[in-house]
């Protein structure tokens, strides 16, 4: 019996194997639009897989989206799955998605930290980091959102391998991070990076490693304001927004700061829903509402990128 991406339960959490298998069926169901590429391997040798949504052309301007770089934030990966399906289904139906994909490519890495994700399913549900060993320490793993070459090792990260915010021995030491770095650099035409986390209900942009406003602060702030407003219009979920340093605290070595410093102007990070009662253990009944409300915010950013070429 041929599998179908439509038979997948988007309202449930899934293992890595289930998600990777579903990605294959999505590609099979949308052969002219969706393909799967491997950008590297994790420390434990798992494939780092990215879904490419493209209607043709070469090296078109592109948008990069990753979910689940912190493995215990399961709502992020689940939202990534739903979003991939949504993009595929809305092409040819929704004018915004159609215009976007007629002119740009979208790359979506649903499981940005597969080793950590598998570990959350098999051994420790609350594992956050990668699973690479640290010389001289019994503690494993590096925080992949402190491992980027953007203020690396600064405030908001730790040099202690046992800390959940350990920045690693050097920038891009983690294969999972290096693979994204190499991909974005190699592509050369990525115009937006959106990195999805949970669970503080925020839409954040550079900088994190310094409180100095970025040159594009005003435009990013206006775009973030619109995105969170459209998100709130779905179920009334209130997000805060602003630069990482202003909104939460100084955090060095983050994905979006690196992307911004590479010239990717529209670099955002989303912190998905918080019920105030579940934290990282958001019940699966909230996957669909979370993904549904996140969609208009994502689309706002993607359409803005399309309409503001640089």
């Amino acid at each position: 019996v041929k599998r179908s991406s439509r038979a997948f339960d988007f309202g449930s959490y899934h293992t890595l194997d289930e998600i990777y298998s579903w990605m294959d069926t999505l590609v099979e169901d949308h052969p002219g639009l969706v393909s799967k590429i491997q950008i590297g391997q994790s420390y434990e040798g798992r494939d780092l897989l990215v879904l490419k949504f493209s209607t043709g052309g070469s090296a078109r301007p592109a948008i990069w989206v990753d979910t689940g770089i912190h493995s215990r934030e399961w709502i992020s990966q689940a939202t990534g799955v739903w979003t991939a399906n949504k993009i595929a289904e809305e092409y040819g139906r929704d004018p915004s998605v159609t215009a976007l994909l007629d002119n740009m490519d979208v790359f979506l890495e649903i499981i940005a930290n597969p080793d950590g994700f598998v570990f959350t399913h098999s051994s420790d549900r609350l594992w956050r980091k990668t699973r690479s060993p640290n010389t001289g320490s019994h503690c494993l793993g590096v925080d992949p959102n402190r491992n980027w070459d953007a203020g690396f090792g600064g405030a908001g990260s730790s040099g202690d391998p046992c800390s959940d915010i350990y920045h690693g021995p050097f920038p891009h030491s983690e294969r999972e991070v290096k693979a994204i770095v190499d991909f974005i650099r190699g592509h050369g035409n990525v115009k937006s990076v959106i990195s999805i986390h949970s669970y503080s209900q925020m839409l954040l942009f550079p900088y994190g490693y310094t409180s100095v406003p970025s040159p594009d602060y005003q435009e990013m702030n206006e775009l973030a304001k619109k995105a969170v407003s459209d998100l709130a219009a779905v179920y009334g979920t209130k997000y805060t927004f602003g630069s990482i340093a202003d909104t939460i605290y100084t955090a060095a070595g983050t994905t979006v700061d690196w992307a911004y410093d590479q010239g990717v102007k529209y670099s955002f990070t989303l912190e998905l829903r918080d019920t105030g009662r579940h934290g990282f253990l958001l019940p699966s009944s909230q996957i669909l509402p979370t993904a549904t409300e996140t969609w208009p915010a994502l689309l706002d950013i993607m359409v803005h990128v399309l309409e503001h070429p640089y």
Partner: protein
Amino acid sequence: QRQFQGDQVLRIMARDEEQAALLKMLEEQEELQVDFWRHPFGPGHPADLRVPFPSLGAVKGFLESHSFPYTVMIEDVQELLDEEKEAMARSRR
């Protein structure tokens, strides 16, 4: 598989910078094994801490001795994990 029986998640609201700094001290006390789910951004922002069952008395005592307002966000982490596992099994069936 690691178990979290009796672990609680506490939501703490620091009243001022001084209290926020005090919270950060908890993170440095390795023996307590406190897991910051949400770091203390500063006054007016909640901080969420998963506290292992054996450290609950010490952490709550610390919070009460410094007059921190806090609520128990999750009574028993393992209960939520069991429910999550059951929901996944139901979906597979």
